[in-house]
């Protein structure tokens, strides 16, 4: 091959030999610079192209949100973390209500604008640690790590409200208002579940929200392990005793403290 015959270069790669046209075009399309910079080493340039392509491959071009692949990878990571830490992680599936009507009545361009506006709205509703993705046609998904069961319903309701308050101006004379239905499920704590099972549980809730009349949120609520601050205070009092008397610690001590 040509590269083996070429004089030894500081880099192993002979850049002009690589067929980077498609990659450059893709990056240019995404308003990124696909050309090598003058002060950039070939390795740095290639690394930059690869990084940008990886990022593109995880992105939904229309909304700029994560795509289905990105969503799946994030879901798998969360399942691992839930299995090890028992953390509460909520998955929401969100589907725009009667989206077909919007497309049929106002055209696909209007539909795209609605998708984009709702996508932005969802991203604004959540924290930076949360993953918002376009899951399919008019369906979105949000993964919320560290979301206490107590907050799930409130949060989903807030998102639903934010979308229904949204007024998408698709032309000077036309505003479209859309609503979404939301289904949510928590990952089973301390269990290494599968993406399919988890999605299926959220999907069942989404179906419930749709069949209950749409524009609502249904959550598969896990049982909350509720321990009040007062209970905790009493539970941990042995630790205080432990620190105060590291060498003379017995049941008697604890009892005295509690009754005092």
């Amino acid at each position, binding site marked *: 091959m040509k590269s083996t015959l070429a004089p030894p270069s500081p880099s192993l790669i002979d850049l002009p030999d690589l067929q980077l046209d498609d990659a450059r075009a893709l990056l240019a399309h995404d308003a990124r610079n696909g050309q090598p910079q003058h002060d950039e080493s070939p390795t740095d340039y290639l690394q930059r192209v690869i990084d940008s392509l990886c990022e593109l491959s995880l992105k939904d071009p229309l909304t700029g949100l994560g795509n289905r692949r990105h969503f799946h990878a994030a879901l798998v990571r969360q399942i691992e973390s839930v299995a090890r830490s028992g953390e509460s992680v909520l998955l929401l599936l969100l589907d725009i209500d009667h989206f077909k009507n919007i497309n049929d009545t106002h055209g696909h361009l209007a539909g795209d604008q609605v998708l984009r506006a709702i996508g932005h709205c969802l991203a604004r509703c959540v924290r930076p640690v949360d993953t918002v993705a376009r899951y399919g046609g008019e369906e979105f998904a949000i993964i919320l790590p560290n979301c206490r069961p107590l907050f799930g319903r409130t949060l989903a309701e807030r998102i639903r409200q934010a979308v229904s308050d949204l007024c998408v101006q698709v032309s000077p004379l036309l505003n479209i208002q859309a609503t979404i239905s939301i289904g949510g499920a928590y990952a089973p*704590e301390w269990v*290494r579940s599968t993406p399919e099972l988890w999605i299926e549980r959220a999907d069942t809730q989404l179906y419930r929200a749709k069949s209950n009349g749409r524009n609502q949120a249904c959550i598969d609520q896990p049982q*909350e*392990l509720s*321990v009040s601050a007062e209970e*905790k205070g009493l*539970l*941990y009092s*042995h630790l205080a005793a432990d620190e105060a008397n590291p060498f003379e610690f017995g049941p008697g001590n604890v009892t005295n403290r509690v009754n005092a």
Partner: protein
Amino acid sequence: MNDVLSPPAHHSDLAEVPLKPLGKVLAVTSGKGGVGKTFVSANLAAALAKRGHKVLVLDADLGLANLDVVLNLYPKITLHDVFTGKAKLEDAILPAPGGFSVLLAGSGMVEYSRLTSEVRSEFLRVMNTLVPNYDVVILDTGAGISDVVLFAVSLASEVLMVATPEPTSLTDAYATIKVLVGQQQRQTIRVIINQATRPGSGAAITNQLQQVLDRFVVAGLNQPIRLVHMGDIPLDPEVRQAIMRRQLMMQATPGCPAGVALGQIARNLEESVIPRPA
């Protein structure tokens, strides 16, 4: 707090224990993961076996099983094959190092980490077949209060709650005890404090749990709840070393502090719940 104590409708049918009282079923459970359930299940089984009991350990942690790692057994046939009808129950039971029998979950069991009616009936069928054949069946369950864990625990005559002295572990153990008391009307829960850093500290912790329960939970019930301290297991480097060497601690170094503690817990169980072998 009352929310936790009133069982949701779909759980109410789990309270019934549909087992013939032919043997002792001990559920080893915890509020938090990684506290030592599997370590306790396997080594307690070995300690009881050494004392002459016929013991079987069932890997009931369908979502996060690691009994295979602790026992260094990777069989072809597992509980998963029994559940899917690919193998007979007898063929999935293996002799474990330590002189007891074991039924491993198998990796496919994640699919069963949800309590569907099939999982429930398969589980029941397996238990009903197994229990009459052993003096003691130990269920190595998952952590927390997922429906599968609660179901597995509901099949047991005794609950062994494993906790470490860490605040998070104690909070979760306490919360789990509240659920067990509320949903399964458990009146006695046996506590093992694992990874204790000082001798005697475990009894104080159990005592503490009992006081919080009495004050916040029992006050609203018409029956007492009794936590029975079954013993402490010290934090012992031999435990980790045995796992690294792929050996069962109770077999490799039974004289180490954790081994001695487990021997004592086995004796305590004999005095309270398991009849001494003939």
